[in-house]
């Protein structure tokens, strides 16, 4: 019951969504629409699982009087502020609303800046870790250097052949290798999807009975 019915449901929905592409009948299309809506609903609820987990984690930190619980208050305050601005303010979805301003001036700068830290780390890694120890590593670094120069205007200035070499690298060896990887990964994705639908792959059910 606890495993058989979910496996059966997985097969029914998976098989239907796989074969509906090949049945051009309006009743199948109608059912496809319904199921797509169901999948969207499930995804929406699944996404919000993260929010519940977040509240749980920080609540426990506060309750257990962890050393850094002050920051948990900050996180929960941010969460409640946005929920309050979104649910209480009548026009939260309009530009210029407090909800929108908080997003654009708090979330956007912080998130964008966090990812921009990677620029510093990649420069540090370039200096400390990128070593041409083997032929393959040398090949990688040479190709990277050509592409890095070719994709900025200064590459044109250094030598007119650099942008041409960059374009060749992207559209010949890069294309061939990425295509090979794409085909391999595509076959793997298909195999995994089939295994899930047919119930061979059951890791999504988790442990227990």
């Amino acid at each position, binding site marked *: 019951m606890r495993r058989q019915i979910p496996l059966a*449901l*997985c097969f*029914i929905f*998976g098989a239907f969504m796989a074969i509906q592409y090949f049945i051009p009948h309006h009743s199948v299309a109608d059912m496809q629409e319904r199921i797509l809506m*169901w*999948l*969207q*609903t*499930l*995804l929406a*609820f*699944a*996404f*919000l699982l993260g*929010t*519940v987990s*977040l509240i749980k984690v920080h609540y426990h930190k506060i309750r257990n009087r962890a050393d*850094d619980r002050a920051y948990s208050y*900050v996180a929960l305050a*941010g*969460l*409640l*502020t*946005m929920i309050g601005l*979104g649910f209480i303010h009548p026009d939260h979805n309009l530009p210029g609303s407090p909800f929108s301003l*908080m997003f654009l001036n*708090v*979330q956007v*700068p*912080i998130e*964008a*800046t966090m990812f*921009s*830290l990677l620029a510093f780390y990649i420069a540090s890694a370039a200096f400390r870790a990128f070593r041409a120890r083997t032929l*393959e590593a040398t*090949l*990688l670094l040479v*190709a*990277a250097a*050509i*592409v890095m120069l070719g*994709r900025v205007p200064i590459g044109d200035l250094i030598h007119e052949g650099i942008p041409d070499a960059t374009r060749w690298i992207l*559209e*010949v*060896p*890069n294309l*061939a*290798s*990425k*295509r*090979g*990887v794409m*085909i*391999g990964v*595509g076959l793997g994705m*298909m195999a995994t*999807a089939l295994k*899930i*639908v047919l119930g061979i792959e059951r890791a999504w*059910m988790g442990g227990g009975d």
Partner: protein
Amino acid sequence: MTFIWTTIGALLTLSIYSFLYKDNPFYKFAEHLVVGVSAGYYLVIYYFNFIHPNVFSPVFLLRLGDEPISFFGFHWWMALIPGVLGILLYTRFFPKVAWVGRYALAVYVGGYAGLGISPVMQARVIEQLRANALSVAGVEDPFATMTNVGLGVVIFAVVAYLLIVKRNLGARNWLGKVAVIVVSAVVGYAGYLVLTLISNAGVVSLTNILLVVGLLGTLTYFFFSMKHTGALGGLARVGIVFLMVGFGASFGYTVMSRISLLIGRVSFLLHDWLHLID
């Protein structure tokens, strides 16, 4: 008012950048703030853009868009069932009844898995194989020059490798090594000239041959059912060369991408906040 909001954004930006010196309370504050704010933002967006109009409103307010719907009617059930399934996902937080969430997960996982089988096969496998089934003769080759240069470099590298490593020439002194390099360069250049003659004749497209060989080599490299020895090993080795060049291109682009993110933030600080640049 705009300047106040921009200043808040700028100060939060600088708080994050303070981490580059060392971890500090300003960074931690900004980090935790964004975690809470983004979670709240996504919750509101998901609720008002999808959950309210497609689940809450039909089930509790008996309205689908502007149209009223009937209680226990078809549309009511079509809104209730996925809503209940969605709520069942939250049973994972209660270990004794967590197994109930499998029903919802089954629909979700099975549905999305089945949805992707055909398009992925078509887009990633069939179309790519079709695109790489190239004519190697009698077609124009826009990359002929660069392909010949590339192959000339490969010839140089192979000759240098064979002479230095395999034949151990030039091992005694630097002058010997330089002589070997010069000889290899001459052979590589000669190879380039020969390939140019072949390209100019328009008989074969060396670029298309490279694309086909590259794809076969890459696929061979990932084929682990047979040992990579002999011809198969040689082809896998060719595949490694193509993969390394591809990864090098990806690495170059990755550096470009990360730098762009930094440029964006500096632009925000200098232009939007401090108005120091146009």
